[in-house]
């Protein structure tokens, strides 16, 4: 729909749709005389003006005024509130004394928001998406008509999809997207040749957040606590960190990437990042293109290491204070008056063979615990050993993770590494596996360390590191020497061999943030057992 007053004052509506019964959205453009104040408003007739929840403007290079010296054109996106069942709906453009009115209910206006969003300039849609992060009103666009990704659904469907990693992806030799449990995402666009200095990268993050228990996860545009996009000689890299507040509910993320390798040469991607440990993610930041694909580009590896250094500095600035505070809290926490917690966490249940062991040793847990949380690839096999007997509550998967998070800071747990338990049982001393509980503060610190400095996917690895650091754990119990209290370097095939030193030193700093030197930990006595 198009309203014309003269060569310098025009108004067009590309789309008007109801996002919810009480909220509408309008896409369009306005041509206004230069040097004159302009204003857009929406009116519901006798029911008065509608509150504008959001208004954003963008260039419309496709609309050219007759005399660009006298008039300017701006595209707009308006999100406005509506009264209940309005009798009319009018968009008014005020330019000085002149007014232009457009009937927003005109049947010629496109009402298909999916289509209009997909067909707009993708930069505009991308911008709207970025603005939606953390904006409750705009956030409702992602729930439009109940479709996943709402108003952006058709646009999202048109974006090229990258799951984890792809080679020979369009003009890129390699695309890689990773995410860590810490809420960090990394997108690396590795080119086959040199990338110009003016190249840039931007991203919007959509997170699938779990709602109330039983409710399906829904997509939400997430604000970034940190974003660092950088150009390297042969790659573009983007490192982002989500706000910690959303991490508890975060199920998965998608990253919408816009990159401009050369002016006017855009790359659009919809990345579903692969899960990665922190070392994996950091190594990827400085990994150059696979040798078989890359043209030699001078200093590409050094530039990657520079990005790595920048990311490490940002991580330490973000995480060290939090870890230090948790460690300090743990040092001052009062012990649980000699009582062992009644919540057990079985970690490292990765082998179905573990199911048999817990089948025949379930009673060891039943007489000590009320609830057993099981984590690991074979958690179901282990859980069944308890569930069949029905004497303790047993949880796996998301439920177990949630229970652990709830315990963090409030209650202690008996953390039992499945393999260490097996060794204790074989040695005839199963009680040994229960004698080193984590207090509430340590549970919180364990979870935080695993998220931001975990060296392996399984929580078991982090638990063992924590116990080693405090000078008593499975390793010590197995006869390991005191030198094990030192940080154990991450063993992996590094994509960039120079990354190992930087990453290990960084992780060591995080693991020791605020922690006292390793010292023998008090071992709580076993409670008197009956039966």
């Amino acid at each position: 729909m198009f309203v014309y007053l003269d060569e310098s004052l025009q108004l067009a509506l590309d789309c008007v749709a109801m996002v919810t019964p009480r909220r509408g959205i309008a896409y369009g453009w306005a041509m206004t005389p230069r040097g004159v104040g302009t204003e857009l408003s929406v009116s519901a007739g006798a029911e008065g003006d509608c509150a504008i929840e959001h208004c954003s403007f963008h260039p419309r290079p496709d609309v050219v005024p007759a005399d660009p010296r006298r008039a300017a054109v701006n595209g707009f996106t308006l999100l406005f509130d509506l009264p209940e069942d309005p009798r009319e709906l009018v968009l008014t453009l005020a330019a000085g004394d002149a007014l232009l009115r457009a009937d927003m209910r005109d049947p010629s206006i496109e009402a298909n928001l999916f289509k209009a969003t997909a067909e707009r300039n993708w930069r505009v849609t991308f911008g709207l998406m970025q603005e939606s992060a953390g904006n409750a009103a705009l956030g409702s666009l992602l729930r439009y008509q109940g479709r996943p990704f709402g108003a952006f659904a058709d646009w999202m469907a048109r974006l090229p999809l990258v799951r984890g990693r792809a080679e020979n992806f369009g003009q890129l030799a390699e695309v890689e997207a990773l995410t860590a449990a810490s809420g960090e995402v990394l997108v690396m666009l590795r080119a086959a040749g040199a990338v110009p200095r003016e190249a840039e990268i931007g991203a919007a993050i959509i997170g699938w957040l779990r709602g109330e228990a039983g409710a399906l996860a829904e997509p939400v545009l997430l604000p970034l606590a940190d974003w660092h996009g950088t150009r390297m000689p042969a790659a573009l890299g983007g490192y982002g960190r989500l706000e910690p507040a959303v991490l508890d509910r975060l199920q998965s993320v998608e990253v919408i990437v816009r990159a401009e390798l050369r002016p006017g040469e855009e790359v659009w991607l919809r990345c579903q990042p692969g899960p990665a440990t922190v070392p994996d993610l950091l190594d990827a930041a400085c990994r150059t293109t696979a040798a078989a694909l890359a043209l030699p580009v001078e200093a590409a590896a050094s530039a990657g290491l520079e990005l790595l250094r920048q990311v490490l500095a940002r991580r330490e600035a973000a995480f060290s204070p939090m870890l230090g505070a948790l460690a300090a809290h743990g040092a001052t926490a009062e012990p649980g008056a000699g009582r062992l917690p009644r919540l057990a966490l079985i970690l490292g249940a990765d082998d179905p063979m573990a199911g048999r062991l817990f089948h025949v040793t379930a009673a060891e847990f039943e007489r000590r615990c009320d609830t057993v949380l099981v984590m690991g690839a074979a958690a179901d096999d282990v859980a069944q050993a308890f569930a069949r007997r029905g004497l303790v509550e047993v949880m796996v998967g998301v439920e177990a993770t949630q229970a652990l998070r709830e315990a963090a800071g409030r209650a202690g747990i008996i953390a039992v590494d499945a393999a260490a338990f097996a060794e204790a049982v074989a040695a005839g001393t199963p009680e040994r596996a229960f004698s080193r509980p984590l207090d509430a503060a340590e549970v919180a610190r364990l979870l935080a360390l695993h998220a931001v400095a975990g060296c392996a996917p399984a929580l078991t690895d982090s638990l063992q590191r924590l116990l080693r650091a405090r000078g008593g754990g499975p390793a010590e119990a197995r006869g390991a020497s005191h030198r094990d209290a030192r940080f154990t370097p991450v063993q992996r095939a590094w994509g960039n061999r120079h990354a190992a030193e930087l990453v290990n030193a960084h992780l060591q700093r995080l693991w020791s943030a605020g922690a006292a030197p390793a010292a023998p930990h008090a071992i709580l006595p076993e409670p008197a057992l009956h039966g």
Partner: protein
Amino acid sequence: MAEVPAADRSVCILAHSHPDFSKGGGEMAAHRQFLAMRAAGRRAVFVGACDVGTQYAAQRPIEQIIEHGEDDYVFAFAGMAEDRLGWEDPYQRRMMVEFLAGLRSDVYHFHHYWRLGVDLIHDLMEARPDATFVMTLHEMLAICLHHGQMIKTRSRELCRRESPLSCLACFPDQTLERFAFRKATLLTIMRRFDHIIYPSEFVRARYEAWGLKGRPSSVLENYLGDELMATPRMQCDAERMAARFGFFGQPTPFKGLDILLRALPLALREDPGITVTVFGAEREDVLRFFPVLEPVIEASGQSLSFAGRYDPLDAVELMRSVGWAVVPSIWWENSPVVIQEARRAGTPLIVADIGGMAEKVEAGVDGMHFKRGSPVDLARAMLDAAHPARRAAYGATVRDVIGLKEFLAGLDLAFAPRGTAAVAQAAE
């Protein structure tokens, strides 16, 4: 309440197979115990795993537990995991436990855990906390993933002690965690048995080093059965039999038949009168396992013969047809039934100097030892043995095997109710 004498306690004997379908040493020993106990007027039930029923169950529905004779049952184990140490189908496991618990036996005597399941044993122990549980450990599968043989998979060296890293060297596709879970599970169950019976000191020492030290146990030889025990021992003509050597068993690489066949030409050089008869295999069977030995077999000519397979019940009789039984196994052997059969027959033995062989054949009494895996040393022993006077001397000293009375007394000791002294009764 009056204490029930051990001899009056009802016993459920469980085995990993049934001799009607498989002739392994463990199931033979278990079933012979069942028959001997019943013949002695004791209350005994036999329950054995059955391959035939298990294969049938994979195609058509079949009762899980089938009566196979009077108080003699077999069961299908199709619901078990691939390693046959646990059940994948908890329902089938529960059926088994309910059946076994329902027998109301005073004693549950397991002759294996393989094809029975550690989880089943655990559940049965929980279902029958009042019963006495006894296990005979015939072999070392719990200790060693390599069929319990404690021989290194790559080098075939003898393994003397289980350790996670050693096991990983033999099975690099396994994990340390898996070894830990397996050992802990098996040990947990075995430590709960009221009594463990070992057929040899050798096996006992291995299990105790592995983690069973301190548990009530005894060494009790397997019983050969009333039928074989009824056969009278006879002296042979040493002059005629001294140079006749026999091998009894399968020609598998671990049984060491190749050592004997390599030793034969060496011995023949000095004593052309020596002969070797292989019982348990035809020439083709041997060549299938040891194709490189064809020239040796050809060169041995009439001095080497193959007698084919034999029925275990004929073993003692066959043993009498040779002057010496040779047991050249390159693995430990736990308590070889061949040695028992030879001793029953009164035939002295030449055995490798390791494990159950060295224990069960007392050198200078029951026979001779030679260096394990050495054809040269075996040839030396054969030449030594081929003298009629030597054969006559050993024929006079070779010991008989355990008799029924001693065997039942050993069982009574093991079957005694928990916390009570054994009330061993003499077998009638």
